[in-house]
């Protein structure tokens, strides 16, 4: 299985993406999934989305990125987080 490149983004690249990053690391460790993780803010990645296999975002993203993006807000609120984890796992095992 190829090691996937994952990008975690939020509006500022400071607060919510940090939380998501932490949870994602724990989840991947738990599932023994290896991936390269990077953290950034949405405005910095508009032209680089193509470099990543998966983008996990707490903010709305431009339509050009939508196909690669999973909405991570449920990881913050806890509501619907299981589906998000399932989707992340499925995408990284593709």
């Amino acid at each position, binding site marked *: 299985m190829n090691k996937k490149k994952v990008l975690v983004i939020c509006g500022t690249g400071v607060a919510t993406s940090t939380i998501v990053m932490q949870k994602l690391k724990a989840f991947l460790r738990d599932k023994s999934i290896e991936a390269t993780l990077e953290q950034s803010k949405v405005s910095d990645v508009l032209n680089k989305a193509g470099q990543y296999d998966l983008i996990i975002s707490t903010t709305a993203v431009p339509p050009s990125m939508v196909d690669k993006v999973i909405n991570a807000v449920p990881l913050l609120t806890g509501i619907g987080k299981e589906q998000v*984890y399932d989707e992340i796992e499925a995408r990284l095992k593709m």
Partner: protein
Amino acid sequence: MSLSEYIGKDHIRIFEEAVDQAEVLHQLGDMLVQTGAISIEYMESVRKREQAFPTGLYTGEVNVAIPHADPENYVKQPAIALGVVRKGVAFRNMADPTDDISVQLVFLLAPERGETQLVILEQIMNLIQDQANMRQIMDAQGTEDVWNVLGQLVQVEEKL
């Protein structure tokens, strides 16, 4: 430091009357400026960021918003201001900016970059995942009482 220490008695404001978002942010920001936690420029960043990337979250019966911005040089001392808005105030949805959420708890975050801040952010996220805790905050009368509730919150177990 625990959440109640970051928030502090001086950083809690209860809004009994109807208010708009600008007023809530102004008053919460003012408390952080008064105690020297932030310089006034930080609030301009927060307002801009809230426009571009809103922070309202659906969390259940009691909804929350976590306005914040890049600390740059504007955060002098990491802190959090808490607004309890009895009648709710509209914040746009983080996941869908076209959607307005009526939120009752507003956590204005003045973070620093780094590990200590992560601990605090995680505590906030654990808190907002627990409606019973949020209900307790809403039921508290007066800022002193809110602060006491925050101090007594059962430390929620680390959640994946």
